[in-house]
């Protein structure tokens, strides 16, 4: 077990900076998932921690020791690669035992440890096979075995599940989590798959454009995304984001949809400021009766356990989870309601508004139960002229 400190970690290639000063602390035994779209610098960051990429600036501390210029093998990290990187000319036994062999550990010890690891990963029957004779899942386990056998302080996983089929991916995800619970080694897992990220992480690091967009537990990141990027990246289907503008310092109205207003429950910029309103599809209340925003269902996506309706109303598009008990069909007109408690507000730069409790004038209870259709009614409610 080890703890890591990253301060101002930077990476540039030929003067072009791709990782812009990453600061974070990873605690002993923590399972950290770095998630982000392709090219966001997550794999580069992992490889910098591993020592496979030089660090252009900043400092990497593992257990308090600066590791910037330390050889990869001396950092106490083991890595599982995306394509497993199993040595094709070696058997499973030789693959798993290789780190011990180069560490000049006696043969008998190597055999004992390799067999113990193989037993944990259900690889005992395959020890004398070559990687080419194994299935994808078995190869993945061999790659993990080679990492585990060194008993490293830090496990690094570089998108290790992305080459597996959907079912195997779920199985391996559970296996990795189980393994982490047993070994309790600090783990850093890089993925672009948000389901993997949500299910595996103790803490999530969402990256975008070489910067950290948000750090937090999966629940925190999901419930309170720090920016429109995080909001749209985490969650499938993605959060609905609508362009809007402040009506006054407390209320927001949607663009392209003049008759919808909500109250923030905290102080907003003065009237006319552009903001973004977000709501998760599962928070959208959809009904067939005449209350709420009228919209047409364009498409229904069947997900087995749930159904998603993609609705439109002029230029406004909104995804909503459909309740199981009501029969909806495409081209049907429905009514969308956005509970105020489920609404996320972001400023013009896409950053989440920090709810300032001191500015809360006590109307939040009302905001919670309110949704407004009809700008006049809403204004009346909010300005207290009802």
């Amino acid at each position, binding site marked *: 077990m080890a703890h890591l400190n990253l301060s101002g970690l930077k990476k540039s290639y030929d003067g072009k900076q791709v990782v812009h000063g990453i600061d974070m602390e990873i605690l002993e035994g923590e399972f950290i998932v770095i998630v982000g779209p392709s090219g966001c610098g997550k794999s580069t960051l992992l490889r910098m921690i591993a020592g496979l990429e030089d660090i252009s600036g900043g400092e990497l501390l593992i257990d308090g020791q600066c590791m910037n210029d330390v050889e990869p*093998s001396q950092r106490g990290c083991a890595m599982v690669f995306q394509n497993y*990187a199993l040595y*094709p000319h070696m058997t499973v036994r030789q693959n798993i035992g290789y780190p011990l062999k180069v560490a000049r550990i006696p043969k008998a010890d190597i055999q004992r440890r390799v067999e113990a690891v193989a037993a944990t990963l259900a690889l005992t029957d395959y020890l004398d096979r070559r990687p080419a004779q194994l299935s994808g899942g078995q190869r993945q386990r061999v790659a993990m075995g080679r990492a585990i056998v060194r008993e490293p302080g830090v496990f690094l996983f570089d998108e290790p599940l992305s080459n597996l089929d959907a079912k195997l991916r779920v199985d391996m995800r559970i296996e990795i989590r189980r393994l982490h619970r047993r070994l309790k080694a600090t783990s850093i897992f890089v993925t672009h798959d948000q389901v993997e990220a949500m299910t595996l992480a103790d803490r999530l690091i969402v990256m975008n454009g070489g910067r950290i967009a948000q750090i937090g537990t999966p629940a925190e990141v999901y419930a309170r995304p720090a920016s429109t990027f995080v909001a749209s990246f985490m969650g499938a289907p993605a959060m609905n984001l609508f362009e809007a503008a402040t009506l006054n310092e407390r209320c927001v109205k949607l663009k392209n949809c003049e008759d919808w207003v909500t109250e923030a429950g905290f102080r907003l910029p003065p009237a006319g400021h552009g903001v973004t309103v977000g709501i998760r599809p599962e928070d959208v209340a959809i009904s067939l009766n005449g209350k709420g925003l009228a919209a047409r269902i364009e498409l229904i996506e069947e997900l087995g356990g749930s159904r998603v309706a993609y609705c439109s109303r002029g230029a406004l598009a909104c995804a909503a989870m459909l309740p199981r008990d009501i029969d909806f069909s495409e081209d049907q007109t429905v009514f969308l309601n956005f509970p105020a408690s489920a609404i996320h507000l972001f400023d013009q730069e896409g950053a989440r508004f920090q709810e300032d409790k001191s500015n809360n004038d006590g109307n939040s209870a009302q905001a919670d139960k309110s949704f407004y259709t009809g700008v006049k009614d809403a204004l009346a409610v909010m300005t207290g002229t009802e």
Partner: protein
Amino acid sequence: MTAAFSSPSQSARRMRHSRRSIAPWLYIAPAALTFLVWIYWPLFDALWLSFHQWNMLPRAPVKFVGWSNYANIFALPKFWQALRNTGIYVIGLLPLAVIVPLAVAIYTNDLSGRFRNVYRAIIFVPMIIAPVVAASVWRWVLDPDYGVLNGLLKSAGIAPIQFLTDPDIAIWAIVFITGWKLIGFSTLILSAANANINPALVEAARMDGASRWEIIRDIRLPLLSSTILFLVMITTLLGAQWSFSYIVVLTQGGPLGSTTNIFHILWDFGFSSMSVGWSSAAAIILFLGFGVLAFSLMRLADRYSFHDN
């Protein structure tokens, strides 16, 4: 009535069928004919000639002599000298055709753009020079009186070396020149194979704690083994043949037959002394000997090829 109707359609079908069965043969005919004319016919002709005595003059009689050509060749000290020299050529060429290029390919793998181009130019230039031109240039370089090399040795106070006229040295001079010409080709093949190794394997080995040398020994060399075996195979099979032009231009097999090899005496028998029976017998011996070698090397290459997926 039925027969009258069915017979034309049957014959049409038969024609279609026969046309279809000829088609595949037509497709392979160009290649098959080329093989037949350039490989199998000369091969069987050589086999036939090896049992005959003939001086290649069209009017001269062709006399069947049985195994006596073979018996005579095996009794000829010059043949055994040529065979021994062929072994020296092959073994002498291996370091230059395999080991040096292997080291160059591995150590220049990480070179950056400009240096890589310079080294490529240095390595590949010999490859594109015509063998006879190269041989003439080397004759100047190695000349005992006016050659650059002996000039350098003289200026360093070392007595000039008779590179091409000393029977103990001449064969090594030819081996070196043949190897110098080959390095570029082998380096090209090995560099390509080396660059083809999945970089993640090398990274995994670095993470596992392998040193630079251990990565070469445990990862690169095993994964290059099939390419190395391929080069060993073609050097073994063709190395002595590649030295042919240098032997002809620089030493004509001398001094005292010290630089001749099996290809050179084969040519010598056939085209200098016009004894085509001897020449063919030597060619058949060569064919069988190298055939056995090639087969065993191919088996080895198969065993050591790993497919990295």
